[in-house]
């Protein structure tokens, strides 16, 4: 059955209200300046809007939102690598995102910088790992086996801790 537009709007509104922090994390991990943050945020919001009629409630809202956001971010990164200037004019629209003072936290900035250095798949795993997703959920989101998630996660954890220790001892 076709979903009413008002329902679709209501669901997107709820998702954005309740889970915007999750989307911000993906945005910060996959883009690196304020124009790109806005562009990617818009893209994720658009893909979420399109995904609403397909959402059957078989998984948690957050899992679904993460899945759509990560996939949109990966697709957006590929497009940006290919056509870095081929994007909607952000100046022509009202600004959607504004940094809050919390974004000045040096340790958080460091963490995002390290995440940005990872490849697209490892970046997704890192975000899911830091947000406390189980191996099963990560495997489901990425479409790989739990064992493989475990191996990769251990490597990422070790890498991040070593990097942090190296930075602090400098």
């Amino acid at each position, binding site marked *: 059955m076709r979903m009413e537009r008002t329902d679709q709007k209501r669901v997107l509104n709820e998702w954005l209200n309740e889970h915007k922090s999750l989307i911000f994390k993906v945005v910060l991990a996959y883009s690196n300046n304020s124009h790109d943050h806005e562009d990617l945020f*818009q893209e994720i919001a*658009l893909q979420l809007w399109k995904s609403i009629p397909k959402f059957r409630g078989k998984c948690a809202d957050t899992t679904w939102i993460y899945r759509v956001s990560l996939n949109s971010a990966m697709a957006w990164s590929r497009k940006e690598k290919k056509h870095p200037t081929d994007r909607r004019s952000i100046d022509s629209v009202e600004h959607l*995102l*504004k940094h*809050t003072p919390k974004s000045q936290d040096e340790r958080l900035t460091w963490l995002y910088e390290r995440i940005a250095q990872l490849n697209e798949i490892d970046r997704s795993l890192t975000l899911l790992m830091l947000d406390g997703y189980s191996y099963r959920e990560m495997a489901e989101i990425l479409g790989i086996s739990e064992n493989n*998630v475990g191996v990769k996660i251990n490597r990422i954890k070790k890498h991040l801790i070593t990097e942090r220790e190296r930075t602090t001892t400098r």
Partner: protein
Amino acid sequence: MNYEELKCVWDSQNEEPVFALNHQALLKTVERQADSIARYVKLFEISMILVAFAVAVILPIDAWREGDGSHQYFIGAICLAAGVYAWLGRQNRRRREIEFDESIRGVIEKSLAQIEYHEKRQIMYLWLFHLPILLAAGVGLTLYSNTRIPWIWGGVIVVCVVSYWGTQRDIKRNLRPQKRNLKVLREKLGGIESQIT
């Protein structure tokens, strides 16, 4: 520093989000974009199908009224076949969109299938639609017009070459790089699998 400390740093953004969001402006933008994309895709596919069916009806009627022009029946038949092919392609594409699972691997596979479908359709259109129509048009003009034969067939050859070049250019410049990138991404996921097996 251990992992728990990293996790604390990470969780600190949950207390106060990094950005303040202009909610209403975002909703307006999303709605506008969603409408325009959906309209564009629908319009493109449906107009292609309608044009093919319209030509498939108009040309044979015209030939029947005139009592001449067997090439018009031929072009009409090709357009009918092309219209049916485009319509079936649209149905298949929509069915395939539902078949893939919604994991990231599933989305990558779906994107790859869409690109392959698009590439195949471009090539099929070139050989099964453009070429026969141009040949039939060339034959028709040779038989029923006063234009000199070298001009007619010169024109047919030029249009054929330009169509072929345009199609190949689109495939090489747009579709193949996209396909390569998606395959690299799929390999990265596969790489995770092979590291353990």
